[in-house]
């Protein structure tokens, strides 16, 4: 809802703290998730995420949540899906070029970022393009998976080459919001319309057919 979404931006500092606590909880629960199976948890968790974040932020379930780096203003509400700041068409008074009745998502984002503790630092990170195959999947579970994988002594070698490259090229964004450039193996239920992409080794010879 538009009014709730704007409320969230005005209280970005509160939601920042809330999420930090929540993220610690989710990451602590990673072993439990693993025991139950990410595959089995994907649908119910994604559904609750959709309901909660949908109500609060008009979340579009891109699966690669960056709210903490965008002043709690969801960038997927931008009609151009911009992940890196406002376009050059913002109207007088800070309204959207495409939907003139709506405040520019990125004018809101800078406003929210200004209110947060780390907001102004995080909003400067260069965000990678969205992996459209992850749309509809749970970003919360993804965070748990990524953080758990990071803690393991050896890095996952099953991640596909493209995702490793994205994680390297957009390293700063990944450090801040691990879900924006995920590399840990995805359960099948988290990937849309696509066979699981976890089988190509990072060391795949270049030029290998990957389609």
């Amino acid at each position: 809802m538009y009014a709730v979404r704007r409320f969230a931006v005005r209280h970005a500092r509160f939601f920042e703290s809330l999420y930090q606590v929540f993220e610690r909880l989710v990451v602590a629960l990673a072993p439990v998730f693993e025991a139950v199976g990410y595959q089995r948890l994907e649908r119910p968790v994604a559904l609750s995420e959709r309901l909660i974040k949908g109500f609060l932020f008009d979340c579009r379930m891109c699966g690669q949540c960056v709210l903490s780096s965008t002043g709690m203003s969801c960038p997927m509400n931008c009609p151009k899906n911009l992940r890196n700041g406002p376009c050059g068409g913002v109207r007088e008074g800070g309204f959207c070029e495409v939907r003139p009745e709506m405040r520019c998502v990125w004018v809101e984002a800078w406003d929210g970022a200004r209110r947060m503790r780390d907001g102004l630092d995080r909003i400067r990170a260069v965000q990678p393009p969205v992996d459209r195959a992850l749309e509809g999947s749970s970003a919360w579970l993804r965070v748990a998976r990524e953080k758990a994988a990071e803690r393991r002594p050896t890095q996952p070698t099953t991640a596909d080459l493209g995702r490793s490259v994205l994680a390297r090229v957009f390293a700063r964004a990944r450090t801040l919001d691990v879900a924006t450039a995920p590399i840990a193996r995805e359960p099948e239920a988290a990937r849309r319309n696509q066979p699981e992409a976890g089988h190509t080794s990072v060391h795949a010879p270049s030029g290998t057919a990957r389609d």
Partner: protein
Amino acid sequence: MVGLQTPEPYDPILHAPLLPPVGHRSASILERVLRKGWFAVTAELNPPDSADPRDVLRAAEPLKDVADAVNATDASGANCHMSSMGICSILSRAGLGIVLQISCRDRNRIAIQGDVLGAAAMGVGNVLCRTGGGVGVGDQPGTKPVFDLDSVSLLRTLRTMRDDGTFLSGRKLSTPPRIFLGAAENPCIPPVEWRADRLEKKVRAGADFIQTNYIFDVPVFAEFMKRVRDMGLDERVFILAGVGPLASAKTARWMRRNVPGVHIPEAIIDHLEKAANPAEEGKKLCIDMIQQVREIAGVKGVHVMAYRREHLVYEIIKESGILQERLEVKARGA
């Protein structure tokens, strides 16, 4: 046809990719002019609604002697015209410096990365990464908008191709594109207070040069440039200020209402309203604007735009004297 010897059809010298001079990112003349410290000039070429290559050459004719590079726009304003790739193919053969504009509105990451390889192979030295306007303002508002990348992730993608020699998928390129990377910035529209920060992000993503949208409000632009200098960005990126002539007060009002991202102060419109010859006055204002922006520290050139009036761009650049100054610098042996 076993045993038939086919001669190598390509000349290893003539057909090889252009190599950048030492310390340069590309073979682009624009990059050389900027690195030399000369005040650079780029101009916009408006693609024809035609399949006749002569229409492109005709439009480029007045620009070729006054611009270091000509921008091949990519369906600007979401209106369909000859593609920027088509323009590049015609103009690169005519020997012009070109800025290939890429808009994220119409193509996804697969198409864009492929186009950049093609453009670089044609000898295009500069690429301008743009998000692009919404489809609603164009002549086919029912189009499906793409926006797979945005201008910033596009910059980072192309920088990865150039500097790491890989696609975003990690697949290796046997010859990376040697391109000078550009981005747009619109300093005079909201959120004005964050525009310099957004520029900084584009620089970090990979921008080597910036072409701004139309500047009509010099005080706002000067304030932006001050912030840019405070952040040290003028040392990290070449900024070209966008200017253009207004034909009349009526056109100015129309642009302000219908072209997204155009900010024209009331004073300028008033001035045109009172002028006896508004078109002549618009041209004079544009020349004035060039003089004013070049006095602002950190501005390294101008980008001149005039919709389908390339001859006017020629006159403006000639009469402003900016190229003359360059010749004088050369005569002094700088």
